[in-house]
């Protein structure tokens, strides 16, 4: 059946170059949701994760363990929890956020946090302790030390960020529950692919997959160039 694959690739090219409005809408939603959530998660998780890596304290092992566990938090469950919280009869029902990209961002944000946190922590911990001492002895306060170590381990941290982004853009379980896969509004690549698959439109599903991967490649290419620049 791999003629579906070829068909899919051709269809992908056609969709992109005919500027299919629906496909472009899906691209927009997917990237807006995934990038926003990953960046927001990085804003929260990078400081905390690297801080945990920086300090020694009681219960650190347990926290490490918890982070590792939450790296494998099932997105469907996350979706459900967010659903229950945002549901009309839930505590934040008043906000009316369900079935919006905001809800999707919240879910993916929470899913990305442990991933970015865990990798940042591991990266900071594998920095040479002598560098740490040197920076301290030069008079750096904790925040400045922390920034130094971040800069030092940026390769691994960016790798963590890319994993989180990759997970977000390709995730489907959570976004479909809290976003609802509403056409023109909250439909992403993955939910769209699920729909097409369910409808037996494998060619179209593959086409969307091909587009997604191509765009991800471009985004990564940009990030990699950036990484090389800061090096």
């Amino acid at each position, binding site marked *: 059946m791999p003629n579906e694959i070829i068909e899919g690739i051709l269809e992908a090219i056609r969709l992109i170059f005919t500027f299919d409005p629906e496909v472009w809408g899906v691209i927009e939603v997917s990237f807006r949701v995934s990038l926003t959530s990953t960046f927001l998660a990085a804003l929260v998780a990078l400081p905390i994760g690297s801080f945990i890596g920086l300090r020694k304290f009681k219960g650190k092992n347990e926290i490490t363990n918890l982070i590792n566990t939450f790296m494998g938090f099932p997105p469907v469950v996350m979706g459900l929890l967010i659903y229950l919280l945002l549901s009309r009869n839930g505590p934040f029902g008043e906000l009316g956020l369900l079935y919006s990209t905001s809800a999707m961002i919240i879910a993916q944000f929470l899913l990305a946090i442990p991933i970015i946190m865990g990798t940042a922590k591991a990266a900071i911990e594998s920095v*040479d302790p*002598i560098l740490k001492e040197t*920076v301290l*002895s*030069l008079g*750096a*306060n904790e925040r400045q030390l922390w920034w130094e170590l971040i800069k030092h381990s940026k390769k691994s941290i960016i790798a963590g960020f890319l994993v989180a982004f990759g997970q977000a853009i390709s995730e489907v379980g959570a976004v479909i529950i809290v976003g609802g896969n509403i056409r023109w509004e909250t439909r992403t690549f993955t939910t769209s692919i699920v729909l097409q698959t369910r409808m037996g439109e494998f060619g179209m599903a593959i086409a969307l997959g091909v587009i997604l991967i191509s765009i991800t490649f471009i985004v990564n290419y940009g990030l990699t160039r950036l990484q090389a620049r800061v090096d």
Partner: protein
Amino acid sequence: MNLLEIRNIHKEYYKGDKSAIIVLSNINFSVKKGECFIIIGPNGSGKTTLLKLIGLLELPTFGQILYNNKNLINISRKEKVNYRRKFSFVRQKPVVRNTSVFNNIAYGLKVRGMRSIDYQEEVNEIIQFSGLKGMEKKNARSLSGGEMQRVAIAMNFVISPELYLLDEVSANLDSMNLKLLDDFIMRIKQDKEKTIIMSTHDPLEAIKYADRIAVLNNGQITQIGRPNEIFTAPKDEFTALFVGYENILYGLAELDKATGLSQIKINDLIITAASQQEGEVKVCIRPESIGIAKEPPKNTSYRNTFKGFIENIRELGNICHLIVRCQSEKFLITITELSRKNLKLEIDSEVFINFKATDVKIL
């Protein structure tokens, strides 16, 4: 007043199997403001560990570190940073940050909140001074061993701390860069507000800079005192063996314009030295290079000849140590047993000691 007081410091490390290694025990000493305090000791004696403790980079197992009478153990993180900013710490094996030489050197100022335009000049000055001109933009990681050592020194000196902690800074430096380091240290020593605590395993370096020396062996301080006390009167055999022997004299040098030589007045003696120096100096004469004669030498190149009496003789196999008193000063002299027998030297013998002006080291 004491700037720093170390009270009963102990430090243990734990091996993989949780058994303790005692690295420092019962360390007590104090350092005055403006002093240059040098810790000497063999490899593994605990010098680096002690400096790290003072630099607040590690915690002692127990004991107190008082700085201006404030105990620095158990202070808050924030206070620790404040104190660390009064100190600097040049590591034995320096590491540098993965950025340019300029940024490395500026880092200490930057973390203290100075803005780039404000430190530009200062940093460039120290770069010039440390002979790193032209390398500012190079990544400090790509430097040679000696260059990196210089960066590490510049990095710490630019922040002009109250207390300099220097851990074997001279390793990796060639003779010219040693001169540079010397300039640096001498500059600091002149500033009576600045204090230095320095470690070394090189006794000569210790003599050169120290106001006081502590001998560390096996985690314990075996002797503390002025360089001449330690080098001429080591308390135990270990110290004696380790430091070697040196004649160290304190005097006032005057330059003789006519000859270009220095005349150093040491109480009743006047010593001639080939270096051109003035003011208070420390003079060092190696016991091996002082000759002994029964009669005053004539027509020789020995600028320094003094009459004296043998106060003491120590036999050490084929060589022996003589302690000769020439007026106010005592000299330690090494000669062969053979010479002693030939010259029939005994305690109280009258002798003439000779040494050359070129052999007098002014430190």
